[in-house]
């Protein structure tokens, strides 16, 4: 891994010194923690680091005007971040030449990749990024319970939500300028951090990621209350894959799952 990090640092320094990018988004180590860091000079590239504990999805920064305003950018990109970049690209949120990836993962450093090259790297080295088995087991365990038991489980979890929206902030897919939860004419989702407002917020947040969530886990990692958000995301991703073959973040141009259709879609639940 140290060789991979060295190569990544060298490429970051090269891009900055050549002027090919103005800002590099990466990770740094501070104590036992991993944090996002931003470097704009080649000499700072030594600060960049990477390991499996880097859970923040740096693609979330691409919605931030202060970051976007400094394009062209390079982003230290784990496979999960690469997938998010491809989702953002397929949803016309970022363009080739605006963002480059310094692709890095458990199998090593993939080099400086344009958006068009990310899919090939992912398919070659990480073709089947699926949720961890332990997570899927928890999803299966909960799915096997009765509706009443599931309602009780989620009630206990959702009641903890303070509506700080750290989940939304951490998610690259949440790039709406004005989130549905902030619309109040009409007020679709109660702003109170309690009751049906919390239920609606959690369910709708998850559903707005249907066919878009790449399973990076940044939302759950960001939740100060420890809500098991990945159970919702994983269940939705599983359904979307089994039913529609959806595996977001592998293609530069992909039709959005919700927003496209097929005459062959299952209709057996419709009377």
């Amino acid at each position, binding site marked *: 891994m140290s060789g991979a990090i060295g190569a990544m640092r060298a490429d970051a320094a090269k891009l900055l010194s050549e002027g090919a990018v103005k800002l590099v988004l990466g990770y740094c180590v*501070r*104590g036992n*923690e991993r*944090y*996002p*860091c*931003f470097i704009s000079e080649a000499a700072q590239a030594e600060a960049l680091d990477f390991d499996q504990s880097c*859970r*923040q999805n740096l693609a*979330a*920064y691409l919605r*931030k*005007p*202060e*970051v976007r305003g400094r394009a062209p950018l390079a982003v230290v990109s784990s496979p999960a971040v690469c997938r998010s970049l491809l989702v953002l690209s397929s949803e016309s949120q970022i363009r080739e030449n605006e963002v480059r990836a310094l692709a890095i993962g458990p199998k090593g450093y993939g080099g400086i990749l344009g958006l068009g090259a990310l899919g090939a790297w992912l398919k070659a080295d990480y073709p089947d990024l699926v949720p961890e088995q332990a997570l899927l087991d928890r999803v299966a365990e909960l799915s096997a319970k009765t509706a009443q038991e599931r309602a009780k489980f989620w009630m206990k979890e959702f009641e903890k939500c*303070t*509506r*700080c*929206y*750290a989940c*939304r*902030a*951490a998610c690259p897919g949440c790039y709406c300028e*004005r989130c549905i939860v*902030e619309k*109040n004419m009409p*007020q679709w989702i*109660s*702003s*109170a*951090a*309690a009751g049906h407002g919390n239920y609606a917020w959690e369910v709708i947040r998850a559903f707005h990621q249907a066919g878009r969530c790449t399973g990076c886990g*940044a939302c759950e*990692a*960001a939740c*100060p*209350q*420890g809500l098991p958000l990945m159970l919702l995301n994983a269940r939705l991703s599983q359904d979307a894959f089994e039913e529609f073959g959806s595996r977001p973040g592998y293609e530069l141009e992909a039709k959005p799952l919700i927003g496209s259709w097929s005459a062959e879609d299952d209709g057996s639940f419709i009377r």
Partner: protein
Amino acid sequence: MKLLDRSKSTDFAAALAAAGYRVAAPVSDGGLVRIKEWAPGAEIAASEMPLNSMKDFLFPRTEVIGRWTLEGDGFASQDVRPDAPKTAVLFAKPCDAAALAVLDAVFNWDCKDCFYNAKRDAAAVAVLACGSADEHCFCTSVGGSPGEAHGADLLFRPADGGLRMIVEPLTAKGKALADAAGSALSEGQAQADPIARPAERFDPGKASAWLASNFESPLWKELSLPCLGCGACAYACPACHCFDIQDEGSRSESVRCRNWDSCGFGLFTLHAGGHNPRADQSARWRQRMMHKFSYFPQRFGRLACTGCGRCARLCQAGMDIARACARISPRENA
């Protein structure tokens, strides 16, 4: 001296509950520790830093402050009173108790906030001095101490290597707590443990002075770059007190509720006409720093930060108010 065996922490909570108190305490909850209403069987984690602060019990994240029902052709106003049961907050942190002065000041400033004050008056706060601190603790940098109990009604001092706590009632409310504890407390002698000494990381006076003349500093853009604009820091903060008032209606009734709000949100200052005076995250993060270390001290003569470190501890983006203060006001010897 009065002593509480650590193993009798839950007995203490149970005795207070039996005496009619709603008991709030740091409780293990699915691997996390949070201050929540104690119920029999809940395991008290007295020394842990809970992820939320005590303010949840005085200034809750959502509070109904008005209610109207539709009757005939008009609305009938319902009488909404503060929900303020007699409450004992056990094993609060010194930094949480210190933040009470901040909340007291702002909720009794231009008007007396009856909802806050009712809860405040009904609450007795028992602080446990800190025997340990982590790298995010910085109370000593903002005039606090892990061994002090400003704002508290009762102080527990860890003693005999953590086996016991020395119980020191400080006010009439605190004495009432000790009296209600019954056999959970005992008389005896114990050796107080040393308290934690988190490093002094910055000089708050210098920070305030720097802030007063650096509203336009380019440093704001740099410092705020990692911030993604959620409200996690403000909601975990024992001293943050901004709120939003929302009227929400159904067909039959309308509810006015007061919800926490955060200067980190873009919507916080968005005007109805579309203009936003804090147009970007650097302006919002600057506001957070300015409010705590400049505006609040100017108005109320105290900092609006007590150094609990929760904001930095939970921020995934690595925003760290103490690091920012250290950057603008390094200590001479650091």
